[in-house]
Each structure stands twice: as C-alpha cells, then as structure tokens.
C-alpha cells in the first residue's frame, strides 16, 4: 500500500487548451496517506473519473506529476502501477467458478498454489462467499457478482491502491446497505489505501474518512463527512451534500448581524463579514431549522412524508425554505415560527463561506 501524491495536476482532452473551460481538471494537489479511505464525490462531468484515470495511468496528465510513496510514476504504464480496480458493472468470468474468479489475479502473477488458496479463502470469508466457492459465477445474482469483483480487488496483498468506480450504482437499495457496510468493514480490517468514486453522497460519506468534493474540474472542499455536513465551505457543497440540500437564502449583514428578509438571524460568522462587495447569502441545512414559539414568521406550504422523516416546505416573504422533521415531532398547520440553529448557520460571499 502506498501514500499517493498528485502535485499541480491539470488535464485537458484538447491538444491546445487556452481558455479556463478547456480544462477537464483545473490545477489540483492532493496528498493521500497510506491506508486511508478516500472518496471522490461530485456530479457527472465534474472530473472525478478523469482524476481516477490519471491515477491508474489510463490517462497521462497534461501538467503535473504523480507520486506513489515518493516515487514519480507519472510516466509509468498502468500495469506497472500495481493497482486493483473495481468497476460499476461486475467484471466476472462466467464460465469459471467463484474460486477461480478470485484466484485469477494471483495465478496471473505466478503466485504458488498454497498462497493462492490461503488468500482466496481469506477474502471469501470476509465477503461471505465461502459456501459458493465451487459454484459457477454465471449462476450468481447481480450483488453476488459484484462481491466477486470486490473480492478480486482485495485478493492481492501487493497492490498500491484499490480504486472503486461507482461500484454500487447498479445494486438494489437493500443490498447496497449490505455491501456498503461490508466495504467499510473490509477497509477497517485490511487498512489498504482505497479510493472510492461516486455521485452518491451516502456512499461517499459513509465509506470515506476524507471526502474530496469536486465540481467543474475543481476541488471545492476536502474534509471529513462531519466537516462537510456541518461546515460546508461553499454553497455547492451545502447543496450537493445532504438530502434535501442546504437552504441558500439571500441576506444582508449590518453591523456584524445577519438579516434575512428583514429578520435578524444569529450565525457563526456574520461578525467576520466586512465590505459591501459580492453577493451575500445565508446557508442553513433543513435539519437545523426548527419550529419555535417565537421566531421568523412562516407559512407551512407542503409536507412530504418519507416515513422516518418529513420534508416540510415553508415560506417567508416569498422565500421557500425546507425543513427535515423527524417522525416523532408534530408539524403545525398554516402560520408558524421557525429558528435557524445559530451554530449551524453560515454566511457566504459569492458562494464561498465568509472567514
């Protein structure tokens, strides 16, 4: 396993990139520790797959260098980089047994029979595939096949990094729960460097210790799931992470106090807000808006019941705000008052949090 460093990487699919939008990846630097669990999270077209392909060597960066454990591998072939990869669609040899599928990457490297057997059985046990080892892979269900793909990614002990490219996208919700927690468990047991690429916030946030949020070829924020949820440094992160995303409302700041549509609102950082320039906005997540006796007057517009919680849409002076209310709390009808949790309310200038 290796420490992975990407230094001043830029990438363009065009021969002569000149304009800013010509770059699929704008300048970025990343330092990933050996044994960590990392996620690249962002919408389609944000550059996360480009970044993955640069690490695996399928693409060579237009600019910048890549290091594994301090060794410059920018010009090294994909095979020589010693990486295991798991893809969105399971890659399984249908005619082979589960055992042979798992053994394949090891036999390919001429590892002796006894060692192959040990590794295959160890990985099969972790993935609860022991009872199916002698079965043909073709008979397995979709999640069974994806387990084999995961197993093949894990079976080699000599790889520098294991990369997962949307591995659970085609899996049904129930099985996703099982495989997702399995993967996290495997990371905690093996402590391999793992990079997980996804557009699904739940997968990224539950799997990774550190999540890199990307948009338009740039890193918008890197942080722990808790940091990204509680302190989004950009309104994009606030919107993209969380379900529903963060409420972003127009505001003004006067004498270190934030005002939303004329209503005073306590926040974490309004006192740091100086100068008149730029667009000021207030961000507060639906989880941190609550009904109170005395606060911002609102009207309840719509209630959607998701079973374990409800999404309540409220209106204040023409501004729509979403709240996420747990099952056991009651929801007033018509006119009501709400409060934004002051330690979870932040002011943003032109999208970036005011510091």
């Amino acid at each position, binding site marked *: 396993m290796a420490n992975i460093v990407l230094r001043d990487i830029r990438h363009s699919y065009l021969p002569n990139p000149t304009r800013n939008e010509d770059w699929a990846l704008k300048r970025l630097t990343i330092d990933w520790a050996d044994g960590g669990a990392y996620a690249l999270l962002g919408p389609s077209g944000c550059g996360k797959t480009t970044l993955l392909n640069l690490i695996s060597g399928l693409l060579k960066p237009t600019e910048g260098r890549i290091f594994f454990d301090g060794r410059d591998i920018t010009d090294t072939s994909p095979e020589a980089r010693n990486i295991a990869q798991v893809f969105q669609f399971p890659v399984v040899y249908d005619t082979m047994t589960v055992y042979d599928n798992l053994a394949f990457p090891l036999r390919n490297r001429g590892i002796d029979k006894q060692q192959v057997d040990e590794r295959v059985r160890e990985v099969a046990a972790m993935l609860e595939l022991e009872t199916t080892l002698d079965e043909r892979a073709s008979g397995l269900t979709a999640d069974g096949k994806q387990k084999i793909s995961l197993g093949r990614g894990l079976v080699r002990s000599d790889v520098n990094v294991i990369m997962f490219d949307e591995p659970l996208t085609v899996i049904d919700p129930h099985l996703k729960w099982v495989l997702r927690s399995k993967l996290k468990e495997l990371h905690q047991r093996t402590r391999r460097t793992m990079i997980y690429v996804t557009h699904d916030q739940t997968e990224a946030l539950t799997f990774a210790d550190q999540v890199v949020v990307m948009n338009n070829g740039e890193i918008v924020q890197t942080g722990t799931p808790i940091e990204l949820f509680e302190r989004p440094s950009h309104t994009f992160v606030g919107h993209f992470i969380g379900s529903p995303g963060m409420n972003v409302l127009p505001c003004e700041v006067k004498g270190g106090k934030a005002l939303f549509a004329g209503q005073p609102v306590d926040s974490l950082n309004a006192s740091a807000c100086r100068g008149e320039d730029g667009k000021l906005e207030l961000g507060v997540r639906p989880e941190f808006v609550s009904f109170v006796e005395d606060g911002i007057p609102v009207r309840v517009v719509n209630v959607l019941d998701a*079973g374990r919680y409800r999404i309540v849409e409220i209106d204040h002076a023409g501004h729509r705000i979403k709240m996420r209310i747990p099952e056991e709390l009651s929801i007033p009808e018509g006119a009501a008052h709400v409060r934004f949790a002051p330690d979870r309310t932040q002011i943003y200038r032109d999208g970036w949090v005011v510091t």
Partner: protein
Amino acid sequence: MSLELNKVTKRVGAEVHIHETSLILEEGSFNTLLGPTLSGKTTMMQLMAGLDRPTSGEIRFRGQDVTGVPVQKRNISMVYQQFINYPNFNVYDNIASPLRVAGMTGREIDERVMRVAELLRLKPMLKRRPSELSGGQQQRTAIARALVKDSDIILLDEPLANLDYKLREELRDELPRFFAERTRIVVYATTEPTEALLFRGNTATLHAGRVTQFGETGEIYHRPADLITARVSSDPPINTAQVSKHGNEVHIGQIRLPVYGGARNLPDGSYIIGIRPHHITPLARNAGAATIEGKVLIAELSGSESAIHFDLNGETWVSQSPGIHPFEVGSIATLYVDMNHTLYFDLDDRRVEGSE
C-alpha cells in the same frame, strides 16, 4: 373508469413471471410498482401497455376488454430507464414527434410543446440536440414527449435510476407536479421505498412476480400485510427477529423486551417482530424505549446521521439516527428501541392484526 387487471398471469415456458394478479388502477391516480430487480415490475408494465400478452386473465380499460390490443392501438406513453430521444432532432422536435405522428398541425403542436416545455423547464434548450444536454435534461425531454400527447396511461420504468443522486432528488420533487393536473393513470416502477413514499398515491409491492399488497402508500409502509411487504417497503432494511411472547414481554434468546399497545393482547407464543432502524437510537428519546446491547460490527457516520450495524443474538441489526454517534468496531453499544412501533408477524409471515 379505470385500468383493470383481472386474474392476469404471465408464464414464459415453465417459468412463472407474473403470478395471478388482480388490480384496479383508478383514473387520475399515481401508482408506484415497488420491488427489487427481477420482481416483475417491467413485465407488469408491458402487460398493462399491451407490449406483451398475458398468458391468462384479462385487462380492461374504461370497461372495455383490451387484452391483446397492441400498444399502437392504445393511447399509452412509456418512459424508460435509459433516456430515449431522437439524436438528430432538437428538443422541440423530440417533444413534438408523437403529435406529428398523430397528424396534428403547426399551431396546435406549438401550443402543446411550449406548455410541456414550460412545465419541465426545457424552454431555454428547445433548439439543442440531446447530446448537448445533461442526463437530467435528456430524461426531462423523454418525459415531456410522454406528457405531450395526452395519453390515457403513462408508464415510467425506473426513469430516475440512471441519473446522478442530486438530479434524482430534484426530479423526484417535481415529477408528481407534472402529472397532477390530468385524469390520466400514472404507473411508476422503482426499487426505492423512499421514492414511493415521497410520491404518495398508491403502491403495489412486488416480490418474485407476485403483488404482495396494493393500497395507499402510507398504509403499506405503516401497516404492511406481511413480512415481505415490510421488507420491500423499508430502506434501510427492517430489522427482524423471531421472539417468544410471555405476557408483557418478548424474549429474543436472553434478551427481554417490553410489549406495548394492542400487542399486549396477543396470545403468548412465537412471533416475528420487525423494527425499522430509525426506531433504534443511541439516545433514550421516547417513553416506550427499551434498552438493548449489541456488539458493533461497523458504524457509518455520514455527518447528518449515524448507522450502527450490530449483532443481536446472531442477527445483524441496524440502528439509524440523526447526529454523530461514533462506536468502535467490536465494542458493546447500548441502544434504545422504541417498542411502540414494533410490527408483529406470525410464523407464516402474516402481520398480526390488532398488534399496533
């Protein structure tokens, strides 16, 4: 005035794809077919649309027998998981195509296209080709085409499955609004319980080619007829255990939990209980909470919620609650179960009436 499936079955060779099913979908209703992959959702839709013939039984629409009437002769629209648009047509012409096929003329086409384009927020991109659109815009174009011709029935087969998570969330929010104004029947297939719940309307839960329950979506979630329906309609998966009831307690191995509500009146004996993950939390919140201890398998902290997977008497259970609750793997977690929301099933997996 409705679409009626009367004792419909579908067999392919020796395999039963759809077991005998009778359903009535009312005019103007939104109906979700909820079930895992290969549970029969797509087959069911093909039968409803006339893309496929049932092996036995009949399909009636507005009182008329339409069994075996092909889709071309019926006024039906379909939207698939893969966005299907004409690549050489711009968005406008893609939306207009069913109207042109129906022989409609210039001005009427224009009025209708503009109306759905407005509804689906496609007005700024009417001149673009599908390849110049995002996935969400492409799927909105396909939905617009399905809406534009005033079909009697619109069938949507996992239309959001190929979209990014965030786009899915946005379209999920908007979809019911697109269908609200008309009297047509909407059928929507999904694997995701949350989608069914947020759409409200009616839900048919499917499992292995069988409709396990059909009714108002909230009713299915809160009062599932059987254990399979409870499983199909729960995300995260519902926790289950076989218990023996002794008076006002149930026993799971050495674990003893109190019984509340109507369930107290059940005769002593063996049952299966179902407890949804959000009714187990690391914080004692409710009066009906009972304490359990479980060995932590893994704790997933997403920033907003904590999912604690733990071993309870040999079963893997999950607790899911708002907030940040870290637990070490292998440690013993003390958790609180809200016993007021426990579902009771008999050993044939039927939910026991009067147990809530």
